């Protein structure tokens, strides 16, 4: 009973946060110097005045302010994020076209980083203070501080150029393009190096959080109590694990929320056509509709990701949903 109510509350909250984000976006667009049409369709006003007039009407730029807010929210909810004059396509279509590629990289690497990071963190915490622990921690620190594109290039040189195990760059093999199932396999083959790079960059965060949580939890009162009763270490660690799992889950949600643009530098280096690459190209070309569209998209995905995680949290940790009732 408590769980359903909690979920319902969170969903309503998320909805209002999204509306607030859209309104803030709208204020930015309207308050910026210049014609707001540039945020909706770029330089189209100069080059194609009739199309610009059509868009002005659709986005209500010729109406008073309060009407414009509603038109804006209405359009966004319909999935219209603006129009890119450079690509001659709606922004939402551009994002959706490239989303699968980015999700392939980000979700795979985040899941791997989550699993490997937690396993390493648990192992390291168990062996706290030993040589193994110190070396794993240092290695993770090294990966955490290396810039993503540098690590990408290093892996590219070692595995792509010198050892020739994996392809250097690109989405597919353009010399011998494949069809159907083999095409997907080709894409997966080309995704190995980018995914490894992203995993190595993201993993240290999970590792550190889990390791620190476990070490901290294992000196909590309940752990001492278990030891006093006589449970062996591995049983205790299972209980500790249950508590330690919460912070990484939050982290995972935040990372997934930013998944859309998170791989931008990696996509640039490896020549992958993802949303991050779209954002970088749009920034250097001052393609405002794409920039605003992607930022709005990210804001919404972050809100949704947090919502999902809050619900998951409520399921995993009874204290949270019980708090709401009292």
């Amino acid at each position, binding site marked *: 009973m408590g769980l359903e109510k909690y979920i319902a509350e969170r969903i309503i909250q998320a909805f209002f946060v999204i509306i607030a984000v859209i309104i803030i976006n709208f204020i930015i667009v309207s308050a910026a110097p210049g014609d707001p049409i540039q945020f909706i369709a770029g330089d189209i006003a100069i080059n194609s005045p009739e199309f610009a007039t059509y868009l002005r009407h659709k986005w209500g730029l010729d109406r008073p302010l309060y009407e414009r807010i509603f038109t804006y929210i209405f359009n966004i909810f319909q999935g219209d994020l603006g129009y890119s004059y450079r690509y001659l396509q709606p922004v939402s279509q551009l994002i959706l076209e490239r989303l699968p590629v980015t999700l392939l990289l980000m979700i795979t690497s985040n899941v791997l980083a989550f699993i490997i990071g937690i396993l390493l963190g648990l192992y390291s915490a168990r062996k706290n203070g030993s040589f193994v622990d110190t070396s794993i921690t240092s290695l993770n620190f090294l990966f955490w501080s290396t810039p993503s594109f540098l690590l990408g290039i290093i892996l590219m040189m070692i595995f792509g150029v010198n050892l020739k195990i994996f392809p250097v760059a690109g989405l597919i093999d353009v010399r011998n393009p494949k069809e159907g199932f083999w095409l997907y396999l080709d894409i997966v083959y080309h995704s190995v190096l980018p995914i490894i790079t992203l995993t190595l960059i993201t993993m240290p965060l999970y590792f550190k959080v889990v390791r620190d949580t476990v070490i901290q939890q294992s000196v909590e009162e309940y752990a001492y109590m278990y030891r006093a009763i006589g449970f062996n270490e591995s049983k205790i660690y299972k209980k500790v694990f249950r508590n330690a799992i919460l912070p990484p889950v939050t982290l995972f949600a935040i990372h997934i929320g930013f998944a859309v643009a998170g791989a931008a530098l990696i996509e640039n280096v490896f020549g992958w056509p993802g949303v991050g*690459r779209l954002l970088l190209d749009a920034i250097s070309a001052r393609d405002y509709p794409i920039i605003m569209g992607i930022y709005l998209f990210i804001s919404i995905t972050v809100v949704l990701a947090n919502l999902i995680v809050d619900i998951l949290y409520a399921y995993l940790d009874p204290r949270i949903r019980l708090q709401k009732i009292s």
Partner: protein
Amino acid sequence: MIKLIKIPSNYLSKLVTIIMIILFISIIFTVSHVNAQSQEAISTISCQYKGGSLVVIHWGDPKSFNPDSQVDDALFIIASQIFNKLINLDVNYNIIPELATSWEVSANASIFTFHLAHNVTWHDGYPFTSKDVRYTLESIKNYKGVMYGFLKMDSLVSVQTPDNYTIVVKYSQPFPAFLGFLAWYGTFILPEHIFNKTQYKDWMDPSIPALTKPIGTGPFKFVEYVKGSHVVLEANNDYFKGKPCINRVTFQIIPDPTAALQAFLAGQGDLLNNRPPTTEIPKINSTPGVIVQMRPVPSRWYIAYNLLNPLLSNLKMRLAIAYAINRTELVQKAESGYGFVARGMYPPAIQWAFNPNVILPEYNPAKADALLDELGYKKGSDGYRYAPDGTKLTLRFTIFQGAEAEAIATIIKEQLRKVGIDVKVEVLEIAAWENKVVKQRDFDLAMLDGFQGPDPDNMRSRFGPGAYLNMANYSNPVFGDLLNKAASEPDPQKRKELYWKAQEIMANDLPYLPLVDLVAFFIYRTEWHGFYWQLPGIAGLNVLERVWWEKGTPVTTTTISIPTQSTSVTPSQVQQGISTTMIIAVVGVIIIVAIILLIIRRRGS
């Protein structure tokens, strides 16, 4: 009544023979007249080996597939395969024929008549005619295409099509630079039958299918474009110059220069179209199976002095800065030796227009010191110079992001420090730089590079009074006059003299200081041949129509020899074709007349 005059049969046969001879001779004259008209005809593509799929590692995504509507450098090499221009530039920036096989320029250089190739079809089978050329030129004018200014569309009077294969372009004033600009950029001929429909608002209307699936007349047809990843083109078997030797061209888009280089070296690509850092050139050169070639290009790094700044408005200050800069060091350290010390005020790569007598200030720090002392700036204890009122001699040096620009700026900062000038280097992102330096003119010293060809009229857009790119605010009326006169002077010799004089004046005024003349790198694998830089006079810039692969299937048919490096186009093959047909026709006529003669003789005897 019928046979009033009886002509003996032998007279009749003699008469017929004479008529035949006259006919024969007149046909020969017609043939040679036709040949003379097509003396600039294009050599057809002939292949030693057929087959192969070329992969080009490319640096960026095209913005659209309309190559004439906006500046789209990433599209240019792709468009050069899908489309043709009327005329093109070869690797030496000389004009060569393409869709226009010959042309005439009126005496006052205001009327241009082009004769178009006959057997050209669009990739969808539709025939190419003068209507397409007219539509393209008029659209550049009506829709403000990227070449609107360079092609002086304001002064365009009319584009006429007297027949399907002739086009007459009339300007209201002399425009000698027209051909150079027409051959350069943003002048690809577009298919009128696809673009010119009343339901389209303009040539960038999103509902035009050709904007995402382009149709051209070029050597390769569009197959697919996966955004951010690759563009695939396949050979056009009906290409008017002949079938290309290779089957496919694929452009793989890898923006990061290091990743692109590594992908190329690992064998993923055959031609590298993403300029690598010059420090990598020796390593690339020594990689087996890879060739690196260099060519000077009419592009140079140059400094702009803001003449509105009171410090820099004094010529002695500008000279002092020039004497303090060691351009040889710039070439060695910033370009790893791959470049040339800039000579003169216009790039030497456009040979006819370059004035070699104009000498730039040489590297002489002693002279720089002397001039700065003369101007009243004394060296302080920290090595920097101070004005009499105590202010330090400091100048901002505003550049845009990029490894080369930043390297050059760092070296110049050090060189100027040695003569006591304090330089603050300001690095801005390119669009921000354009806004601050070009639009607002808020700078002391600035540096940029850029293509200054194909015609010296480009000087007017860069240095002329009132020009958008004239960030130094240089306005010498004599200089401006010379450029304006040269722009409308039809006599090439007189034009050259005017441009040479203009360079002298600019060197005396020194509003801009050229630093380094750039080179272009051609990096490719040894098994591929037939690139445009190997075929001057024949292949246009960036065009891959004559590329062949030595690992393809050898072509066994003999006879036709490959057009080699000789100067201009070889009309022999086309001439051969026409005269063979005519000779067959003449022989046929002779045989028919001979048969008639025999019959008459039979009847007679």
